[in-house]
């Protein structure tokens, strides 16, 4: 079945004209039609536009024009990435009707490369959450068990890729929002180095932590997509002027004598023992392939959550202040300005978003800035120093991606328990490091994620390690039963 193909496989067939872009798009749209009532990965499906774009690719190919590397490959975009002429809601009531007059830089680059947009995927409102339960519209379901969450905030993108409702997708990752849902849904998810991918057009949550990254069926696809989206962008002052290599070129290199650091704090209590076992097994496999693994310490790991939950809300409180009902988005009825502001924001924003805005506003407010925001930025330095020290000796750090597998929808009500979900992914955001999650087996029938963290701009190295693992684990392209047959229902 066409929808099962990876990006690399599909691109090859498209190139050889064994399939058309229209057929590829139709296969994905059929999969959406068949499964998305259950999975609810998409907020918006742009079927007509997708087919028109696919036809345009086919027409150009038949004329023998030179096409981009992803020409005719259908994709899904997280709905916090701006798409010209297509609603970009951030899963918020406040932006339900917002149609940007511009494309995010990544969207522009993907279109340039010939990728075909299928639609926009669900997320926790403004990317604040770990389950998509904070979406103002609906909760996306994990294709491996629809009673469970797909993770978040890029849960829609992860579920869409896992269920073959898209050949690949983009997510955004502020504290683990690509890697955690990738782990929960059994797909590959990469958060690039801060500055590797332009943030222009990604609706900001926490500007100093946000990165856009690929969510794919395998590691090769991840490299292919990163090739297209990475690189300097004059519209993002924080994007780095660092050369973009062909990341697929790293994949075939072996990992002999690669030095793996295994931070003990990432295997502490609170990490599910089955998850730990799967990750230990994965590390053994890497060692059997010639890598050298040593236990190390990142002593400030436990401070990651408090640092994150001060910095991210502080930045968010400022970033989300523009949603004031004046120029776009939802506006509540009111006869004076102050009421208009307060009613618009109170009615338009969900409770988790409001909570974080409150926390962030407090952390920045007069008299508390030094105690909270500045203190957090200082501890962030200590966390970064831990990584710097580790990377002086090791090439890659290997950890579980999440403490647990996907949990039941509605099962986590305690705020701090929910926040602790991010404990293993947050470090890479705070230090700006690249990190990728790849499937490494199952616990209780649910996917477990293996995380590789690398030095700044060493995406090639972590992809190489992830690829070596994936090629030898026998787990590549494990399908959730719901997607396996296309129309098999439980």
């Amino acid at each position, binding site marked *: 079945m066409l929808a099962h193909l990876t990006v690399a496989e599909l691109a090859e067939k498209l190139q050889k004209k064994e399939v058309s872009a229209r057929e590829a798009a139709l296969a994905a749209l059929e999969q959406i039609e068949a499964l998305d009532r259950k999975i609810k990965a998409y907020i918006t499906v742009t079927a007509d536009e997708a087919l028109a774009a696919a036809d345009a690719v086919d027409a150009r190919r038949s004329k023998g024009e030179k096409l981009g590397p992803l020409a005719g490959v259908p994709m899904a975009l997280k709905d916090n990435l701006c798409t010209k002429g297509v609603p970009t809601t951030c899963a918020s009531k406040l932006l339900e009707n917002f149609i940007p007059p511009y494309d995010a830089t990544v969207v522009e680059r993907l279109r340039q490369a010939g990728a075909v947009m299928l639609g926009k995927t669900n997320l926790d409102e403004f990317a604040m959450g770990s389950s998509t339960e904070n979406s103002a519209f609906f909760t996306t379901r994990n294709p491996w068990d629809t009673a469970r969450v797909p993770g978040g905030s890029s849960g829609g993108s992860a579920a869409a890729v896992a269920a073959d409702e898209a050949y690949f997708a983009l997510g955004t990752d502020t504290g683990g929002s690509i890697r955690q849902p990738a782990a929960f849904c059994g797909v590959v998810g990469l958060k690039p180095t*801060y500055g590797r991918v332009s943030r222009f057009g990604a609706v900001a949550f926490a500007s100093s932590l946000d990165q856009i990254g690929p969510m794919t069926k395998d590691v090769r696809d991840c490299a292919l997509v990163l090739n297209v989206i990475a690189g300097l962008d004059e519209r993002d002052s924080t994007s780095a002027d660092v050369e973009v290599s062909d990341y697929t070129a790293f994949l075939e290199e072996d990992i002999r004598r690669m030095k793996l650091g295994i931070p003990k704090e990432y295997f502490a209590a609170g990490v599910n023992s089955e998850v730990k076992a799967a990750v230990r097994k994965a590390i053994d496999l890497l060692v059997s392939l010639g890598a050298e693994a040593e236990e190390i310490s990142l002593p400030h790991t436990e401070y990651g959550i408090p640092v994150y939950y001060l910095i991210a809300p502080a930045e968010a409180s400022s970033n989300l202040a523009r949603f004031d009902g004046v120029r776009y988005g939802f506006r509540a009825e009111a006869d004076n300005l102050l009421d208009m502001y307060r009613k618009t924001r109170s009615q338009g924003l969900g409770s988790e978003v409001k909570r974080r805005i409150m926390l962030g506003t407090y952390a920045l407010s007069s008299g508390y800035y030094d105690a909270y925001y500045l203190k957090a930025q200082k501890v962030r330095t200590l966390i970064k120093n831990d990584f710097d020290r580790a990377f002086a000796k090791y090439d890659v750090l290997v950890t579980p991606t999440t403490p647990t597998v996907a949990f039941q929808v509605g099962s986590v009500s305690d705020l701090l328990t929910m926040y602790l979900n991010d404990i293993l992914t947050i470090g890479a955001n705070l230090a700006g490091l690249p990190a990728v999650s790849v499937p490494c087996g199952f616990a209780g029938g649910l996917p477990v994620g293996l995380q590789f963290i690398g030095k700044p701009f060493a995406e090639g190295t972590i992809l190489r390690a992830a690829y070596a693992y994936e090629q030898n684990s026998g787990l590549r392209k494990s399908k959730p039963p719901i997607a396996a047959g296309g129309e098999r229902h439980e």
Partner: protein
Amino acid sequence: MKITQEEVAHVAMLARLELNAGEMEEIAGQLNDILEYVDKLNRLDTTDVPPTMHVLPLANVFREDEPRPCLSREEVLANAPEAEDGMFRIPPVIE
């Protein structure tokens, strides 16, 4: 209690959020839980530690002073909740 309901009300005003009494109490409780939790940062002495405002050592990123096309008026106002005379209409602002 680290944060009083009065402070919650003040912060809500700064953030232009309208919270009813129930929400106010709930959020006050939750903020207190979180603030208690983040208190563990005070175990660390950070006197001589510089803050990390940017993870990348970037500086001097500039644009040249060259005009580029703007949006059309139609595009500018397409998302406006209310518009009049090419401008965004809003409830009265008293100065």
